């Protein structure tokens, strides 16, 4: 035993294992040993992601060739593509392998991993970026754009001098890249309708300048922090949430949708917070100012009145905004008020439990205040309220893709009742009240019961209608980053195809890249009879059964009351129909699936 300590294995490796290792590495030179260490770290990361430390992976990466030319094009017509493709051939003939990618397919965040880029872009209409270029163009001009001190770039604009904003988009790219610290290899060239010779000269000029760069192997390129999938303990918690920044709140249902669903991006920059695909995010929110005013007015109180919560003294307005639960309703509020005031109405309401429940369901605290404007003090009001709790949302992103951001998919709860507009607490806050750039307190809630299979080759079936899609976006980002080879099958549903296909363009991209093997869609209102995900499951029963037999993991996220139950029934049906099982056997199969952690649910 003590022997092992001499080798610094701390008891991790027993003597016979150590012996095998020593034999295996005998005769290797220093370079080979270095490579081995990286290789083994990689193996470890596959077995248990929490063990992979970023610096180990970068050791492997640093041994690979550095510096690449990426040619990125964006235009309405095929001209920019033509130039880009021709340029790739030219560069390759000059001994510089280059990648060509359309801006439509280019992930803007990828730019910080680039060393050399050549942009070919046209300008649309009155100086706007062409459709394909909009996302990258906006990203580089936004607060989210990273500093790019190591990037070398060149821009070729395609335009028509008869337009007022000639080559405006190319000019924007040039300025934005320079602003982010990137270096222009050659000056931007703006081409008129007849672009052939100018474009050719631009290509040659760049090649002349970068040839040395890209063939000299001495260039030290910082390796981006490798994907670290562990939920590392951080100092932030439910008790001590991190003050993140709202980066984006984007409605992702169409203008004619019956739903208002938002894609939310929050920056965790400098927090050190790490989460895994499957985790949830706790979000603290501020209550709506108008609603707080209505509550205070209903009781005839003063917003500036002092109240005490625990050991803190604060104004009533402040307390109701930040500390008190107002958007849910609960019997204890009614009880506290009834006890305090002996108001006959409240006492009567409290007496009939069923009536009380029915009364409370469609109401928020403000509605109770308006219905029963009893005489209470500011302190009594605050005491009657439950403390405001954070709302949990399944995280819709993977840090391998978004790094220090966290994304959510939030359905805005908003309805008119009792004479004014009511909003959900957190959904209203994130979707409509919080300005981009403002602070929001968050923490990560681990969910080890909703995890991708450890083996990247294991197939995955994901059932996530509505906002239940969120964790599967995280799953796919994660599997994309892992380059996981397992098949992935998504079941999604919502009311209408044209309005409610959440993250449609991303799923299309994953289908195109081959990451998503199958997508089964159920748009309930696109035909006379309603169709839901469980119907698609049954329709595809034979295939679903085959996947399960091949070891697929099965995930469900979303509505617990109806959908998850119907999906479970569909699974039982599939075992009976395609597995030729009795009802009892099917139940046992499902139980076994659950015990093997191959049937996981994140339902609410």
């Amino acid at each position, binding site marked *: 035993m003590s022997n092992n300590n001499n080798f610094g294995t701390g008891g991790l490796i027993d003597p016979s294992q150590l012996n095998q290792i020593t034999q295996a590495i005998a005769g290797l030179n220093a370079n080979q040993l270095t490579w081995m260490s990286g290789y083994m770290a990689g193996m470890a990361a596959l077995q248990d992601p929490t063990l992979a430390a970023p610096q180990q992976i970068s050791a492997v990466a640093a041994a690979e060739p550095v510096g690449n030319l990426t040619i990125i094009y964006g235009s309405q017509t095929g001209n920019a593509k033509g130039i880009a493709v021709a340029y790739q051939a030219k560069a390759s003939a000059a001994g510089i392998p280059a990648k060509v990618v359309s801006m439509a397919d280019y992930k803007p965040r990828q730019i910080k991993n680039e060393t050399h880029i050549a942009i070919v872009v046209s300008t649309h209409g009155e100086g706007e970026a062409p459709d394909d270029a909009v996302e990258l163009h906006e990203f580089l001009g936004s607060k989210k754009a990273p500093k790019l001190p190591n990037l070398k770039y060149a821009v070729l604009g395609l335009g028509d001098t008869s337009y007022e904003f000639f080559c405006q988009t190319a000019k924007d790219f040039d300025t934005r890249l320079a602003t982010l610290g990137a270096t222009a290899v050659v000056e931007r060239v703006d081409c008129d309708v007849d672009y052939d010779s100018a474009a050719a000269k631009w290509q040659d000029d760049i090649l002349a300048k970068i040839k040395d760069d890209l063939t000299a192997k001495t260039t030290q390129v910082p390796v981006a922090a490798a994907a670290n999938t562990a939920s590392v303990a951080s100092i932030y918690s439910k008790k001590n949430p991190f003050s993140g920044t709202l980066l984006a709140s984007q409605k992702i249902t169409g203008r004619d949708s019956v739903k208002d669903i938002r894609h939310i991006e929050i920056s965790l920059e400098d927090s050190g917070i790490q989460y895994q695909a499957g985790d949830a995010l706790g979000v603290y929110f501020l209550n709506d100012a108008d609603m707080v005013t209505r509550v205070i007015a209903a009781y005839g109180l003063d917003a500036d009145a002092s109240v005490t919560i625990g050991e803190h003294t604060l104004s009533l307005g402040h307390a109701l905004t930040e500390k008190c639960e107002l958007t849910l309703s609960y019997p204890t509020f009614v009880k506290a008020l009834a006890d305090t005031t002996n108001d006959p109405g409240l006492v009567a309401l409290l007496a009939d439990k069923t009536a009380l429940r029915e009364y409370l369901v469609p109401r928020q605290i403000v509605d109770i205040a308006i219905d029963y404007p009893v005489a209470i003090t500011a302190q009594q009001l605050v005491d009657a309220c439950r403390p405001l709790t954070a709302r949990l949302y399944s995280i819709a992103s993977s840090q391998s893709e978004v790094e220090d951001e966290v994304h959510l998919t939030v359905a805005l709860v908003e309805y008119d009742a009792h004479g004014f507009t009511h909003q959900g607490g957190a959904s209203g806050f994130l979707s409509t009240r919080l300005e981009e750039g403002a602070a929001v307190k968050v923490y990560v809630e681990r969910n080890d019961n909703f995890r991708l299979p450890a083996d990247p080759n294991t197939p995955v079936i994901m059932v996530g209608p509505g906002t239940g899609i969120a964790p599967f976006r995280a799953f796919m980002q994660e599997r994309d980053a892992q380059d996981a080879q397992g098949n992935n099958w998504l079941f999604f549903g919502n009311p209408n*195809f044209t309005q409610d296909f959440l993250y449609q363009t991303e799923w299309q991209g994953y289908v195109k890249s081959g990451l998503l093997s199958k997508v089964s869609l159920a748009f309930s209102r696109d035909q006379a009879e309603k169709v839901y995900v469980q119907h698609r499951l049954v329709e595809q029963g034979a295939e679903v059964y085959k996947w399960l037999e091949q070891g697929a993991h099965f995930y469900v996220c979303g509505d617990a009351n109806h959908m998850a139950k119907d999906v479970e029934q569909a699974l039982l049906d599939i075992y009976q129909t395609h597995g030729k099982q009795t009802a009892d056997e099917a139940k046992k199969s499902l139980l076994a699936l659950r015990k093997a952690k191959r049937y996981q649910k994140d339902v609410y």
Partner: protein
Amino acid sequence: MSGNKNLVVEGKLAVNERIKGESNFLRGTIAKDLTDDMTGGFTSDNFQLIRFHGMYQQDDRDIRPERMKQKLEPLHNVMLRARLPGGVISPTQWLAIDKFADDYTMYGSIRLTTRQTFQFHGVLKPHMKLMHQTLNAVGIDSIATAGDVNRNVLCTSNPEVSYFHQEAYAWATKISEHLLPKTRAYAEVWLDGEKVETTDVEPILGSNYLPRKFKTTVVIPPQNDVDVHANDLNFVAIEDNGKLIGFNVLVGGGLAMTHGDHATFPRKADNFGFIGLDDTLAIAEAVVTTQRDWGNRVNRKNAKTKYTLERVGVDTFKAEVEKRANVQFAADKDFEFTGRGDRYGWVEGVDGNYHLTCFIENGRILDYPGKTLKSGCKAIAEIHSGEFRMTANQNLVIAGVTPELKDQIDALAKANGLMPSVSNQRKDSMACVSLPTCPLAMAEAERYLPDAVTEIESMLTKHGIPDESIIYRVTGCPNGCGRAMLAEVGLVGKGPGKYNLHLGGNKAGTRIPKMYKENITDTEIMSILDELIGQWAQERQANECFGDYVIRAGVVAEVVDPAKDFYA
């Protein structure tokens, strides 16, 4: 086939040639795309191929940027252009398309177009087969109304001389059928037609179809409502003692061009001479096959018949047509075009029935507040025993109304805004569809036209000539569906709110207008027009139209031979 290498453009074939060649006679993988529910659109080759079946993939461009932010694809849908030779449609057919427009199109309208047919706008993928099957059930198809084929054949909608129209219309139909693709792809893909184990053959169009779109008309002078000079092939009806005896054949018109590319230009058709009726189909076929073999398949921007004529020479082309058809053109017979507009209101036909021509602004049949055009047409279709004729000016003729029904239909037309009192200027104005649905549109056309005409009306009033009119046309892009290149004042879309302003066409549509100012705003255009209309009102000679005046006054030079002087 020609044996003469100089007549064929050598080089790397345009991308569309590969698409057509590999399409298995226009099937492509359209059927597979129809089952792909991840997208409302078609993959790249099929995107082109559905045009041969009469559909264009479009999207609501007004909300394209908004949807991109929403991570939703563009709101893909298709526009369908029906094949309706001569624009003739029965009341039963009308009721079927009226219902489909209501139930399954995003815009709920029937759009009459400059190709003398109707279009559905905004049909989603899950309803596309149903659309074709609905049309098929009433005897309408959309084969070859777009793509590199002979498209819907136009025919003058001359309401009075109904027997003459019947004859001309019969020829339009025969020509359309004769030049139609023979592939069974349409029936297989859209009508779930049986797959037959025979190889398709395209004896006229060839397995690669034509190099570019091809447009044909039958026209009855003195009306030039079909705008012969916008078409590749025109049969000008010649009568002798009230009998149709044959046609003058005009070849090589076309208005499309590309901004900034001076190798492209609008061009008038050449008169090849006169043929007898019996030679009509042979000549039609010979013109099409000559263009099929000699048309430029390397550069699509120079692929239309008009460029083939410029390249090989009119005489060479004509000689080849004579050789292929085994027909000699006789000397052309005299004819004259005097105008292009429709005659609004009631006329009595020679057979004792009546015809009502309704003015439909922009050709858009839809219920507007106080102007329930669509309900009105439907109500008429429910009682009418004659037919409807769509005109090449995007208007609608209720033709063959029996004397017994005249009063009832008159009342319905009036009650539903189909007989509006509008100025001559409004009647002489036209626009293509453009934004928000047309993917090629660079500037507004249909949505801009009504207000623009109001402004021009007030100019005419201000300058003391309220009853005068100017052929005024707006087209959203240089492809030119709005036929602005045969207008006295033609606007060609260049960018949002920006147009190239062309002046100097004439009433009869026999002169191409020249560019006066490039890429200017509508405000600038209006101020130019105000000044020029003022001068015209003061200085015009007797019956001198605006287009003639601007040339005489030296505002623009006359375009005589566009290949040489359109850009000069």
